């Protein structure tokens, strides 16, 4: 199939960006979206132009590096699929595809489609962990965890930290990301001692990074490549409320 790409090009964070149009010819339907871009980049290099910069690494939907807004939707709108696992069989011959970076104040653009998502790391550093040092931990089976709890915790822990939830949100809120980490740890008995402190610290850091407020429209859940449930935001609100009441 033949496609027309409208791609956001921006030299760096200081210069304004713009769309450029490129043809993508003879695209094979078994290609992934990123492999299609690889082919376009090979042609750009051959014609003496700078290739399109975009993040990707594992290319199997788990590292969370890839991050494209495709036709206005983060990761392209194929439910539960990150851009690297989106295949060209979902597109039609002759289609025009727009490709943009994540757009959020807290994710400044580095180049073209690449953004800086270090704000997420700083949120984790503020409390997204259980404070145990290496060594001296009890036997793994000393603390039974109900299967239902472990499973629910795992549902939240599946977050890959890609930032699609922020990119799609009209307020660029990071609530789903924060809720996933707070829920993963707060659900487990190991996470209980720091439950309150964690919820307060991570929400405070989220606000400090410039992410917007949550109005529970649910667009984050819809584009999440790991289909993290909106219910975790309810859990975060609850944990945060209790922590605030306890005046931690």
């Amino acid at each position, binding site marked *: 199939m033949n496609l027309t790409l409208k791609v956001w090009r921006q030299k760096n964070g200081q210069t304004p960006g713009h769309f450029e149009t490129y043809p993508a010819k003879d695209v094979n339907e078994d290609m992934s979206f990123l492999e299609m871009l690889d082919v376009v980049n*090979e042609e750009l290099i051959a014609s003496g132009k700078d*290739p399109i910069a975009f993040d990707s690494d594992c*290319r199997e939907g*788990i590292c969370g590096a890839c991050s494209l807004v495709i036709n206005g939707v983060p990761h392209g709108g194929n439910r539960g699929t990150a851009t690297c696992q989106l295949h060209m069989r979902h597109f039609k011959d002759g289609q025009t595809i727009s490709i943009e970076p994540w757009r959020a104040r807290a994710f400044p653009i580095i180049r073209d489609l690449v953004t800086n998502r270090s704000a997420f*790391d700083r949120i984790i*550093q503020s409390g997204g962990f259980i404070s145990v040092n*290496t060594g001296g*931990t009890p036997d793994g089976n000393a603390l039974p965890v109900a299967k239902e709890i472990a499973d629910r915790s795992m549902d939240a822990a*599946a977050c890959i930290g890609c930032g699609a939830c922020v990119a799609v949100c009209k307020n660029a809120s990071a609530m789903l990301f924060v809720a996933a980490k707070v829920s993963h740890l707060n659900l487990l008995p190991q996470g209980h001692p720091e439950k309150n402190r964690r919820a307060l610290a991570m929400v405070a850091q989220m606000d400090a990074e410039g992410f917007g407020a949550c109005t529970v429209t649910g667009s984050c859940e819809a584009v999440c490549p790991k289909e993290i449930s909106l219910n975790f935001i309810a859990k975060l609100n609850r944990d945060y409320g209790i922590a605030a009441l306890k005046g931690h």
Partner: protein
Amino acid sequence: MALDSQSPSGPLAQKWDKHRFDLKLVNPANKRKFDVIVVGSGLAGASAAATLGELGYKVKCFCYQDSPRRAHSIAAQGGINAGKNYQNDGDSVYRLFYDTLKGGDFRARESNVYRLAQVSVNIIDQCVAQGVPFAREYGGLLANRSFGGAQVSRTFYARGQTGQQLLLGAYQALARQIGAGSVKMYPRTEMLDVVVVNGHAKGIVVRDLVSGEVSSHAADAVVLATGGYGNAFFLSTNAKGCNVTSIWRAYKKGAFMANPCYTQIHPTCIPVSGEHQSKLTLMSESLRNDGRVWVPKKKEDCGKAPASIPEDARDYYLERKYPSFGNLAPRDISSRAAKEACDQGRGIGPGGLGVYLDFSDAIQRLGLETIKGRYGNLFDMYEKITGENAYELPMRIYPAVHYTMGGTWVDYNMMSTLPGLFVIGEANFSDHGANRLGASALMQGLADGYFVLPYTIGNYFATSKLGKPSASSAEFKQAEEAINSFTRRLLNTKGKRTPTSLHRELGKLLWEKCGMARNEAGLKAALKRIPELREEFWRTVNVAGEALEFNQALEYAGRVADFMEFGELMCLDALHRKESCGGHFREEYQTPEGEAQRDDDNFAYAAAWEYQGADKAPVLHKEPLVYEEVHMSTRSYK
């Protein structure tokens, strides 16, 4: 130079305890005087950096990704082994040790493997305490599954995302130390050289991948945890950014490279779909617990719909050839058996390069819901990539490059032949011999990072009172200048070929001549071709952009340049090892049944190569593998 493994004396089971006692300690108040550089933030790097930070050392951690959480450990699916014997099925530390040593075809160091099995039990405890959401039974205790090469259930898992959850545990421990100020993190920063001062590794040169600036960092010791070199083959299950650069450049500074020919070809990957393919995707080995591998008995049936091929016309070749392990035969053996079936013309799918992994029996026996519960995410992933529904059609799978057992030679303390340079995780050669068993990579990465290196590095500090140089000293300036001129050379060549096309050509050559099966003629041909290709690279490479900017083409070209050199050493090592063992299968050395034929009289050693300079042949050093406790048996899974 004689290689000294520093393996402690005494009975096997007591070596590590004895060694820990013999190691010199650093006073808690003195730890903050020591700077440690950790390169890489996967399981080994993140766990080491976090633990060293907790102990009080001043740590700098570097990764090329935009966040330490993206290191490729994250993609490991199946699980992590530990000799807990929670299932009461006869497991023990000794059995895990023996299975790992045997799985590695008796080409690993006995003392290292025993220690690995010993600390495996601590890893599970540590990860549970960190909040890793391992699978549980209804009673609330930890669940286990079985994995290739073992007859007990000792694999702990978190759905099909065990690597992700373990890495996030280590990443969170690291994040805690970054927040506490004991670790400084440098994401999007690539290490390009080790700096040696007075014969010791005392720092690194890095490139800031955002600004393009090259700078130096000095320290009292350097730890490399930069993963494997599987991307030498271009197509592999590694992430796109995985590379050999850090250990290759350390090799050129005096850190010997051991057993580079030992590469693991994983039997269950999704077959290649075309020339555009940028990487291969693994389907977890855990699928072989319930899936049955088969090809048609007759060539003529290969094009037919699988459901139309009757039971008696199918060859369940693993069950036929290895009845006691069946579909759970180790990876090297399963991969070779798949290749053999395809070589006989019985492969299925495009180009005849595939075999079936069939779940219909398991679905009938256990029900669709149970299979969905166990492997749902893997079936979804398969459907995304191939467009096929594996609940209805059998999966098509084919072997692909997955893991590299070879790497930097290290002693029992994880220190390389370059003093002060420690190498941990997949980047070193130490624990898996010639073949790694499933669910053992996660175990080794975390063992090295949490429980081995933090002890042994203290001994280095306590005994080698050298101090650290300034990062503006002459050695660092020279190293920076060398990197800058390397970059200029890449950018100024302005040829006609892209780094991708040259890398693809190298990868194809290595896959054909130094892949699942090797022979003398093929390896000699590769050794002739690689220098030509390297020369072509430096004559024709076209690297877009400039040095002082965010330039992915430049990053990649530098990594390909290193693969162009490394590939030659890999073939040289494969040519010299005139035996078959584990992942290294030399066609000339096989039993009449087509199994690997080891030559313990002549090759029971680790081959460590010493760099001699560009265009000079490296020198081979041998570390004899002495087995005090176990008897080197012929590996049989029949």
